[in-house]
């Protein structure tokens, strides 16, 4: 790429930080607070554990962001995580072992994503309805396959993904690189164009259907793989383990500046949002608040971050 091209690319990328400054500041403040409360965090082992705790939230927030950028939303994230963990735990004892399990989970995510995407992109059904309905289906299927937590995840896989190695951190870096590459394809830029102005994008020659369909497939794969990761963490499949993650994914994305109307937001914002939530939950834990308080906090976060820009514009108009 020419120097001019590199310059243009990085300038555009830098511009996307606009409006994220406050989030990064708050995040930095909480990380400092966390480090003060728990000074051991910067040891390699503790850091690896922390990243493992954050990783599933980061991945579902990323998946939610991809869909929200196109102007959609995915309410089936949580049940999909559960189903991913159940499928992983019930296929890995098969003849193909870990490889077969990963393949099954990948296929699950891609198929469910393709089905959701077809309804939304081709059938033009509202994403909120399709994914709400789908969440019931996925929840049911997960319980049919594995009525109670169980199944089998090879300890070697658990040790590799969620043991003392910083695998989760490497996976996160890998994801960010892949995402950067995708964002440099016409389909990736199309995510924002379609969410911003679908009619205009269509008239400009963007394949709106392909953009939306791909978004749901990618998102489905990310979420089902998160299910596999969670199964590795717990060492078994659990048909309800993903339940809180639908809300967590939306909260993290919105906290990261991803808009409900589409076209607005960045992956870095969503990842920062999920990290902030993760840190918050840890801080609350150290302060002795009950674990269920995180639900209250997640809800409050959504309300506050959505209403803040509204309040600000009201003030600006009044002054």
């Amino acid at each position: 790429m020419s120097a001019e091209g590199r310059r243009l690319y990085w300038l555009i990328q830098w511009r996307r930080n606009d409006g994220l400054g406050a989030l990064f500041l708050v995040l930095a403040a909480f990380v400092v607070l966390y480090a003060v409360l728990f000074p051991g965090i910067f040891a390699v082992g503790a850091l690896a554990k922390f990243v493992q705790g954050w990783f599933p939230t980061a991945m579902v927030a990323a998946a939610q962001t991809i869909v929200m950028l196109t102007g959609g939303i995915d309410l089936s994230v949580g049940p999909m995580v559960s189903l991913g963990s159940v499928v992983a735990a019930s296929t890995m004892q098969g003849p193909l072992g870990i490889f077969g399990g990963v393949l099954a989970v990948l296929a699950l995510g891609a198929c469910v994503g393709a089905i959701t995407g077809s309804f939304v992109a081709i059938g033009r059904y509202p994403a909120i309805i399709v994914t709400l309905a789908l969440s019931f289906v996925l929840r049911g299927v997960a319980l049919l396959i594995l009525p109670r937590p169980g199944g089998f995840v090879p300890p070697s896989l658990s040790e590799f993904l969620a043991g003392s190695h910083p695998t989760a951190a490497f996976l996160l870096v890998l994801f960010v690189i892949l995402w950067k590459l995708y964002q440099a394809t016409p389909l990736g830029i199309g995510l924002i164009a379609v969410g911003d102005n679908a009619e205009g994008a269509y008239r400009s020659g963007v394949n709106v259907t392909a953009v939306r369909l791909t978004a749901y497939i990618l998102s489905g794969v990310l979420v089902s793989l998160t299910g596999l990761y969670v199964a590795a963490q717990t060492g078994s499949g659990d048909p309800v383990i993903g339940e809180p993650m639908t809300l967590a994914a939306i909260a993290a994305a919105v906290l990261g500046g991803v808009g409900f109307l589409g076209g607005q937001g960045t992956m870095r914002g969503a990842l920062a949002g999920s990290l902030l939530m993760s840190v918050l939950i840890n801080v609350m834990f150290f302060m002795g608040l009950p674990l269920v308080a995180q639900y209250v906090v997640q809800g409050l976060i959504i309300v506050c971050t959505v209403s803040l820009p509204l309040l600000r514009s009201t003030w600006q108009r009044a002054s």
Partner: protein
Amino acid sequence: MSSRQAILEARNVSKAFFGNQALRNVSIELIPGRIHALLGENGAGKSTLINLLSGALTPDSGEILVDGQAVTLAPRDAHRLGVAVVQQELSLAPHLSIAENIGLGAYPRRWGLVDYGRLAALVEEIGGQLGLIESRDTPVNRLPTGRRQVVEIAKALAIKPRVLILDEPTSSLAAPDVAMLMSLIRRLRGESVAILYISHRLNEIIDFCDYVTVLKDGAVTADRALVGLDPSGLVRLMVGRDPQNLFPHYAPQFAEDLVLEATNFRSGGATGVDFRLRRGELLGIGGLVGHGQEDFMLGLYAAAPAKADHFWARGGDGSVRTAPFAGVTEANMSGVAYVPADRRKEGLFLPHSIDFNLLLPSFARHAAERRQSAKEQGITEALARRLNIRGDRRRPVQVLSGGNQQKVVVSKWLPLEPSVLLLNDPTRGVDVETKREIYVALRAMAAEGKAVVLLSTDTPELVHLCDRVMVFHKGRIAATLDHAEASEEAIVAAAMGLSNAHAREGATV
């Protein structure tokens, strides 16, 4: 020149929406090296024709031909074949940068990734031609409207078009950009690009177009070289009839007593309006789109916050107010009613019945009472008879044609006996026959002593129907013209900010 093969051609295309025939058997040929003007009043079918030519819509009948071959187009195919459109409604993605928008839909690629090097070069080349000085990484939502239009034009040029369709490209451009665009279009003509140019600025068209197609009510009324035509000749082709026949005989009925008066009335883009309104008066409001007229109407109706140095209004019940209304309900209670421009979104509940839509304002007035179906039927029956709304009124209002929908929006207010009726462009996209019916109805309301304020983008309406016309320019009244003084020339001149004499007069009225 006409011996050359057309690059893009529509042959006998027709298109209808919800039973409204937007285009009837229209043919048009776009020939390389020719600037082709497309003219027509609002609602004549220009936008529909552009959408057919660019593949955004498919015709009900007839064909679209590229290089003589019949094709079925989607916008992506049209792009590949070199057809670029600069839409009036921007096709930009506000959160993407200028560069990403210019390349959108046709990014230069390498190994599947966007080639930012070639994109930068392309943006540099085209941006240079158009005087696009903004940094290429600026998100489009940071630009003012006029500059967005420049980006839109750059985006169309980025596909190196063989056919360039421009839908009112100059309406939001600043003067230097207009000159730049003109010279660019001339250069493209030299490079054998076929250009279709839509504009309401007749002088622009006379200046630099070669050929004209005129649409009226969805049909072609002229398709000829521009040589030998002057602006009034063009107007005759567009109107195609003596405008007098469309309007009821002018007979003023206004009284001397005021119903509304304000000085330095401010609301949004209306930055200082002095006006008064008499009982039985039909007051026209003109001006180019976006000069504060609409904000003025919304402010009067209290749908937007408004302030005034002096305000005086007499309600239908004789009560007097000395401050602008605090809310829409209050405006309604004082006898002010508003008919919005976008009837489908703001004026109607499309899936609900005609009856329901007609009754809605009355529900608000009688909120505490039980509904009585016999009484309701009586009300809607009378309204339908009065404005000639035919057919079963239990049908959803969306089955009606645009004109009949408009009649529903206007007549629903009548049971409240408003003393001031504000109408925002009520005849936009309405067929000629319904226009006439609406004119007659407005005159009849004035005759009953209601004050009618008619904001219109259709200048003949202002000239022939109204007792008085206030012309807006930059948020203020540039001229107030009596019926005798009002002419299309005077109104257009004032709207462009040309008439100083009238501006002084306007300030004192």
